[in-house]
Each structure stands twice: as structure tokens, then as C-alpha cells.
């Protein structure tokens, strides 16, 4: 009976009590993390209740289908998970400092740390960040009022949150996988890990994967079908191009992950033999399938970041992007090539040299379009009137580091070299080297750039720039030494080592990691400080940086209906052209019309609640709960077909008033010169510059 009700969930599984049962260093760290999560959740819940914030949370956020709010929620999820991921990174570094002949954490705990860290950083930090920016920017940049399927968008967010929730729950109840973010069997099979770990991995990736494919679908259709009149493909901003290519990658690269997750679940739950050691199972199938997803995944993570860099490089050098066509072609080339290189993640698996060479060459080919992009950014900066704001600091760090990361990537693409450094710390250095400066810096810089657009005030320049420098310095010290350590022979994922000559490097990386932690705190500080000073930092005009594309052509925060009229464009960088011509703030139509917003929906919340319950129930074999939650999801989804809600209607008068206020603001003065853009005089209207 107890088995029926609680499945395999027992008191021993409550990880936050481990510390009382057996207060070792490892348990103290593990349980404190759990307690932190619990206390954090309690505080948030208390605040929601006491301050009455639950109401706006439910009725303006969780039920919304507005792409801007959904985008913000994605980024908030990303930030929360990022805090946890960085904390884990620091704990792992501290383990490495002590792990000469055995560190203070148990090997198992260390393995859990790198597994959750990797899974979180890839699936619940970088993906939500980028999908968040796609949500925020794509509809605005193509002149649409929302994405093609707003409710589907909410569903995607729901699934992403489910995955993140399962990861957070695993801190408190049970244990997460110890098989790394790649989760290779047979080690993650029942024979070696009968516990809950790999099951958490399966359901958090599996469920959030559903959301991600749907996002890809949604944005592909949005970009194909929802562009405003005149927005031909070759007039789309570069970010939209990269979002399109990323969507295509999501649509086609997620299925191998879905397949591999289903098979792994069948192996673990129903005793199938896809990847087991016995009865013909073959784990090489797993590696092959996983990386058919995994490699395109890294381009999913980098392409939108490239798009973001392209956008703000142009803005902060005060000129149009150099080589638009070559960027577009390079983006598409990377997207297609990224399906042809997956084997470089397992050169050492034993296939013939011919195959290795073929995939090695394909990999090196990708360096060509990627190199083109780096040159394009440099050429955009060249001759521009560059303003050294926070984004350009990140950009400078990025260009230098990404070149290094790219070169080491080419080294790794050479099978003979790869045999020597495969699975070593060299690889850890390489992928942090491309992921942090590549994607993370792009996102942090973009938060600075587009934050004013959606919240109505700028971020404090001094705090933001400090955070940027700390990230760059911290990154340098935390990861560059690992190239050396890797060449000296330390494998990745090592809970201990025997060669004392690694120790100095480990201390340096520890310092770097602490510096990254300080950077994170500064970043959070920049939000707090700016929120306190939001009146001086306000930019109601909505164009604080002299932007070039359509998203800047509206007040800040962007009104719910995005545009009073669906714009018509007849060139790239339409808003910059209009500003140069002096027509940007003119009303070009005099009858305003009512706008119907996309209807609200509760399906997202339903998914968050019942999806999480479902995942949890599956992990702990609580079958009745799993069935009930699945039924709840199913009935609600079918029910959607019977609901015919109308969205809120925004009356024409409101739209007219907002628009006229905005235009009046622009008419007030000459606007802000670029050199004054971080002074309080910046109200979000740019002084006119004739060059476009």
C-alpha cells in the first residue's frame, strides 16, 4: 500500500536531511544547497502572499500570451538557474583545489555537481536566455504584433519551466544523475544507477525538449508568415536571420534527443535493451544519436548570440552592419553544416580513420563561415564611431576569446590531436571558452542593450561595465589555465588527481571562479541599483542607443500592442533610415483602429503544475499520480479546442493617446547626442545624425 502511494519515495530520499544523518563535508554542501532552495522557495511564497504579489503573478504574468512577457519570464528563469549553475561551478573549482589525492567532496557528489551544472547551463540557462531574446525581439523586429501561435508559446515556456523545476526538486528530494550532461549509458542504465538520478535527467530533458521543439516551430512560422509589408527576407535584421536558422535547427535537431530520451526511458523503465551491456544492447547508438542532437545544439546556442552581437555592434559603432549578405550566407552555411559533424565528439570510439577524417574535415569547414563572421564584426567596428559602453566591452572580450576558442576547436577537430586531448581538461577549457564569451557575454550585453526597451529605464553604466570587466577577468583566470592542465594530462570530470604540479593552476582557476561569482553579484547589483534610480535612468522615448531596427520605433516600455499601425518598410534598418530622413516620429495614418490582443490562457500554468507532478511521479514510480497528471494535461489540451476566447480589445483611443504622447515627447527637444547617452539627459530620443 505504501508502495502504491509513495512509489519508491522514502524518507531517505529527502536530501536536505542527509546532513543530520551523516554530517560529512559533502553532505553539508549538498544539504545546504537543498536548504537554500527550500528557504528561497519559502521566502518567495511568503512575499507573494504577504505583499499580494501572487495576484499580478497569476493574472498578468502566468496567464499571459504576450511575447514580451513570455520573453522576460524565459530570461528570469535563465537568471535564476544561472545563479545556481555558477554556484556549482565555484563549488567544483573548490573541489579541484583540494582534490590532490582526494578532495573534500565524495566522488559521487562531485559527479552530481558536474552533471547538474552542465545540464542546467545548457538547457536551463543559455537556451532560456536565447529563446527569451527571440521572444522579445523577433516580433518587434519584423513588425508583428505577436508570434504566430501565442498560446503555443506559453506552452513552450511551461515545459521549459517544468524541466527547471525538476532540477530544483532534485536538490531536495532524491539525487540527480551522475553521468554528466550527456548521460552516457551503460553507466546511466539501471544496472549501474538504479536510483533516481538518470530518471531526473530523462524527464527534465524530455519534457523541456517538447517545449523547445514547439518554440522552433513557432518562430519558423512567425518569421515565414508574419513579416510586415515590405519586410522581404533580405531586409530582415540579422538577429531575425539567426533566429530563423536556430528555429530550423531546433525543429530538426531535437528529434534525435527525443528519440534517445525515449529509448533510454524504455531501457530504464521497461527493461528494453537499446543501450545496455547485455542482450545485444549497444551504447554506441546512444553516443551517435545524442550527438546528432548535441552538435546542432551548440549552434542553437551560438547562432542567436551571433545575431545579437551583429545588432549591437552596428548600433554602438554608429554605422550599418558591414557585409550583411555574407553574414546571412555564413549563418545558413553554419546551420546546414552543423548537421554533418556530430562524430567529432567521439573520434575515439573506434570507427575507421576514414570516417574520422571525413568528419574532421567537415568540422574544419565550419570554421570558414564562422571566421567570416568575426571579420564582419571587426569590419563593422572599423571606421565606426565606437562608444565604449558595456556591450562593446563584452564584444571586445568576445572577439579575442572566441578567436582562441575557435582555434582550439580546430585543433580538436583534428582526429590525431583529438586522441591525445579527448576527455581532458583541454576540452573543458575549449567549450567554456566558446560558450561563455560566445553566448553568455552576448546575452549579458544584450540585457544591457534591450533592458530599457522593455522596462523603460537604462541599467546603470558603472555597475554594468564593472560586471563586464569582472566576467572577462574571471573567465580568463578560471578557464585559460585549464588548457595547460589538459595538455598536462588531467582528464575532465576527475574527482581527484595525483600530480601535485596541477595545484598552482587549480588555485588560479579558483580565484577566477570567485571573480565570476563576484561578477554575478555585480550584475544583480546593477539591476537593483538601476531599479532604485529608475527615474533618472528613464528612457520613455524608447530609443536610448540610437537604434536601427523596428523594435526601437516605439515608446519604452513597449505597449502591449507593439505598434499602433503595422509598419511598412522599404529598406534594411528602416528606423535608422527614417530617423535620418526626419520622418521617424511622424504619424503616417490618421484613423486608429482597435487592436485585439492574443487571448490569455491557463494551459501554461497547468503544464507547469501537472508537468512537474508528472515528471516527479515518473521519477519516483508513483504511477497513480503520473496517470492523473497526464490525464489533467490531456483533458486541458483537448479542451483548448473547445474554448473560443476573445483577447482583450485595446480601444483605438488608447492607442492614439499613447502614440501621440510618444510623438510629442520626440518633438520636445533635439534628443540626446551619442556622447551623452549614459547621462540622465538621455530620455530615449536620439539626436538626429545624418548618416544612416
Amino acid at each position, binding site marked *: 500500500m505504501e508502495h502504491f502511494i509513495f512509489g519508491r519515495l522514502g524518507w531517505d530520499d529527502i536530501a536536505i536531511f542527509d546532513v543530520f544523518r551523516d554530517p560529512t563535508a559533502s553532505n553539508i554542501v549538498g544539504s545546504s544547497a537543498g536548504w537554500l532552495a527550500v528557504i528561497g522557495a519559502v521566502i518567495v511564497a511568503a512575499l507573494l502572499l504577504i505583499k499580494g504579489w501572487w495576484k499580478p503573478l497569476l493574472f498578468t504574468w502566468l496567464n499571459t500570451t504576450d511575447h514580451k512577457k513570455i520573453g522576460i519570464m524565459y530570461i528570469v528563469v535563465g537568471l535564476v538557474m544561472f545563479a545556481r549553475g555558477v554556484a556549482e561551478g565555484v563549488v567544483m573549482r573548490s573541489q579541484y583545489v583540494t582534490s590532490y589525492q582526494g578532495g573534500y567532496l565524495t566522488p559521487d557528489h562531485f559527479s552530481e555537481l558536474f552533471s547538474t551544472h552542465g545540464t542546467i547551463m545548457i538547457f536551463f540557462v543559455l537556451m532560456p536566455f536565447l529563446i527569451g531574446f527571440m521572444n522579445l525581439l523577433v516580433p518587434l523586429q519584423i513588425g508583428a504584433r505577436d508570434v*504566430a*501561435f501565442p498560446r503555443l508559446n506559453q506552452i513552450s515556456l511551461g515545459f521549459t519551466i517544468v524541466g527547471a523545476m525538476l532540477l530544483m526538486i532534485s536538490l531536495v528530494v532524491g539525487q540527480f544523475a551522475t553521468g554528466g550532461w550527456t548521460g552516457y549509458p551503460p553507466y546511466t542504465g539501471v544496472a549501474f544507477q538504479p536510483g533516481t538520478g538518470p530518471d531526473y535527467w530523462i524527464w527534465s530533458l524530455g519534457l523541456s525538449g517538447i517545449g523547445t*521543439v514547439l518554440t*522552433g*516551430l*513557432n518562430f*519558423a*512560422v512567425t518569421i*515565414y*508568415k*508574419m513579416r510586415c509589408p515590405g519586410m522581404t527576407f533580405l531586409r530582415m535584421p540579422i538577429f531575425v536571420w539567426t533566429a530563423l536558422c536556430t528555429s530550423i535547427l531546433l*525543429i*530538426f535537431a*531535437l*528529434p*534525435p534527443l*527525443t*528519440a*534517445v530520451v*525515449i*529509448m533510454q526511458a*524504455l*531501457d530504464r523503465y*521497461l*527493461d*528494453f*535493451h*537499446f543501450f*545496455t551491456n*547485455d*542482450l*545485444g*544492447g*549497444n551504447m554506441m*547508438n546512444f553516443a551517435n*544519436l545524442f550527438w*546528432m542532437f548535441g552538435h546542432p545544439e551548440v549552434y542553437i546556442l551560438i547562432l542567436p548570440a551571433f545575431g545579437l552581437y551583429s545588432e549591437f555592434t552596428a548600433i554602438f559603432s554608429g554605422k550599418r552592419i558591414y557585409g550583411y549578405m555574407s553574414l546571412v550566407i555564413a549563418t545558413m552555411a553554419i546551420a546546414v553544416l552543423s548537421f554533418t559533424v556530430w562524430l567529432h565528439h567521439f573520434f575515439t570510439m573506434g570507427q575507421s580513420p576514414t570516417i574520422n577524417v571525413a568528419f574532421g574535415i567537415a568540422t574544419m569547414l565550419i570554421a570558414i563561415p564562422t571566421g567570416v563572421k568575426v571579420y564582419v564584426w571587426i569590419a563593422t567596428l572599423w571606421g565606426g564611431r565606437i562608444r565604449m559602453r558595456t556591450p562593446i566591452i563584452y564584444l571586445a572580450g568576445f572577439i579575442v576569446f572566441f578567436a582562441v576558442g575557435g582555434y582550439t576547436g580546430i585543433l580538436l577537430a583534428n582526429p590525431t590531436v583529438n586522441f591525445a586531448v579527448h576527455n581532458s581538461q583541454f576540452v573543458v577549457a575549449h567549450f567554456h571558452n566558446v560558450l561563455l564569451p560566445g553566448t553568455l557575454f552576448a546575452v549579458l550585453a544584450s540585457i544591457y542593450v534591450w533592458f530599457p526597451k522593455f522596462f523603460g529605464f537604462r541599467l546603470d553604466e558603472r555597475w554594468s561595465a564593472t560586471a563586464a570587466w569582472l566576467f572577462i577577468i574571471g573567465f580568463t583566470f578560471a578557464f585559460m589555465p585549464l588548457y595547460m592542465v589538459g595538455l598536462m594530462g588531467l582528464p575532465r570530470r576527475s574527482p581527484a588527481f595525483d600530480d601535485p604540479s596541477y595545484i598552482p593552476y587549480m588555485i588560479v582557476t579558483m580565484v577566477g571562479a570567485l571573480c565570476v561569482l563576484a561578477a554575478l553579484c555585480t550584475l544583480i547589483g546593477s539591476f537593483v541599483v538601476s531599479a532604485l534610480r529608475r527615474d533618472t535612468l528613464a528612457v520613455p522615448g524608447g530609443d536610448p542607443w540610437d537604434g536601427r531596427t523596428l523594435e526601437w520605433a516605439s515608446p519604452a516600455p513597449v505597449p502591449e500592442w507593439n505598434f499602433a499601425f503595422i509598419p511598412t518598410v522599404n529598406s534594411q534598418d528602416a528606423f535608422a533610415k527614417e530617423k535620418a530622413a526626419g520622418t521617424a516620429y511622424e504619424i503616417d495614418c490618421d484613423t486608429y483602429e482597435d487592436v485585439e490582443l492574443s487571448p490569455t490562457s491557463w494551459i501554461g500554468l497547468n503544464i507547469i503544475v501537472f508537468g512537474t507532478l508528472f515528471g516527479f511521479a515518473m521519477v519516483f514510480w508513483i504511477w497513480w499520480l503520473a496517470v492523473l497528471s497526464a490525464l489533467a494535461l490531456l483533458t486541458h489540451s*483537448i479542451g483548448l*479546442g*473547445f474554448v*473560443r476566447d476573445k483577447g482583450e480589445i485595446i480601444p483605438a483611443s488608447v492607442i492614439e493617446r499613447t502614440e501621440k504622447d510618444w510623438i510629442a515627447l520626440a518633438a520636445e527637444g533635439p534628443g540626446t547626442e551619442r556622447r551623452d547617452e549614459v547621462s540622465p539627459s538621455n530620455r530615449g530620443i536620439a539626436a538626429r545624425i545624418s548618416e544612416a
Partner: protein
Amino acid sequence: MTTSNTNLRRHPGLNLGPSHGKAHEEAESVVFGFWVFLMSDLVTFAMFFAIYATSIQATAGGPGNADIVDVTSIALQTGSLLISSLLFGVATVAMKYHSSKRVVILWLLASLAFGLCFLGLEIRDFIDAAEKGAVPMRSSYLSSYWALVGLHGLHVSVGSLMILVVCVQIAFFGFASDVKTRVLRLGLYWHFLDIIWIGIFSVVFLPGLLS
């Protein structure tokens, strides 16, 4: 007339008429989005096919391909699917040319009946196989066989459920434009499953007959 004519060609089964400008645009997006979904799903199936192909020899001494195929049953299953598809097509044509709700629902239910025939036969085959010891726990080969064929069966089951749902919607709302596009999408899904089935009988079942 010309515009409405091309629209008709564009989505046989969908006749929103020229007066439905906005509805038509939305239908375009919805149908295109559904195609994207189908193609993503097709890649998932392709992965199961690929794994099947790599484990044909991994029978671990257990039953293999040749031991589980029952040609008559497969032929009947194929027939059921084809007839079901045809009937679905007839239902969409009926909907397009303003037949009554009753007629369309009847065609849809007929289509569903053949879908259920397929499922019944498939389940019987699965039970037979299990009785012969060809359970998925027996070998990697059987795992991939059950997973691939089962995944298709699961899709057919979901489709069957959706046919019922759509029938209810027609009864409730009549042929509102969103109901029409839903029928249309379900049709795409239903025909799409046949394409997967062609793959299954050509890759899984028929090679099993070769001695």
C-alpha cells in the same frame, strides 16, 4: 474567382472563401506550422528507423525478423490504413462542398473504424509475438522493433482519439473556420502516418519474408 480558385487548390478540404481574408491567413500559418511539426516528427521516426537498421543482427539468439512477420495480417493492416485514408479524404471533400454535418461525421467515423481495425490487428500481432517469446526485453533487436512499430501504433491511437474529438467539435460548432482547419490538419496527420507505414512494411516486415 481566380483567387478563390487558387485557394481551393492550395488546401483541398478547406474552403474558407474569399470573404474570410483574415481567417484564411491564419489558416495558412496554422497549416504551415503543422507541416513543420510533421516534418519534425518524421525525423523522430527516422531515428527509430536508423536504430532499427543498426540492430537487425542484435537478436542475442532470440527471435529475429523472420520469426514474427505474419504477412496476411500485415497486408490487412496496410489495407485498413489505405481505406481509412481514402475515407478521410472523402470526408474532407464532403466538408469542402458543404455536405451536412451528419454526412461528414459519418465519413470520419468510417475512417476511424478502419483505423481501429488496424490497431486491433496490430495489437493481435503484438500479443502473438509476445506469446512466441518475442518480447522487447528479449533482445536489442526486439526492443527496436517494438519501439518503432509501437511508436507508429501510438500515433495512430492518438489520431483516432483526435478524430473523435473533431467529430464532437463539428457537432458543437459546425464548420467554423477553426474547426475546418483542424479537420484539415488531422487529415494531413492521418495521411502522413501512412507514409511512415510504407517505411515500416518495406523496411521491417517485407524483408522478414526473405529467406
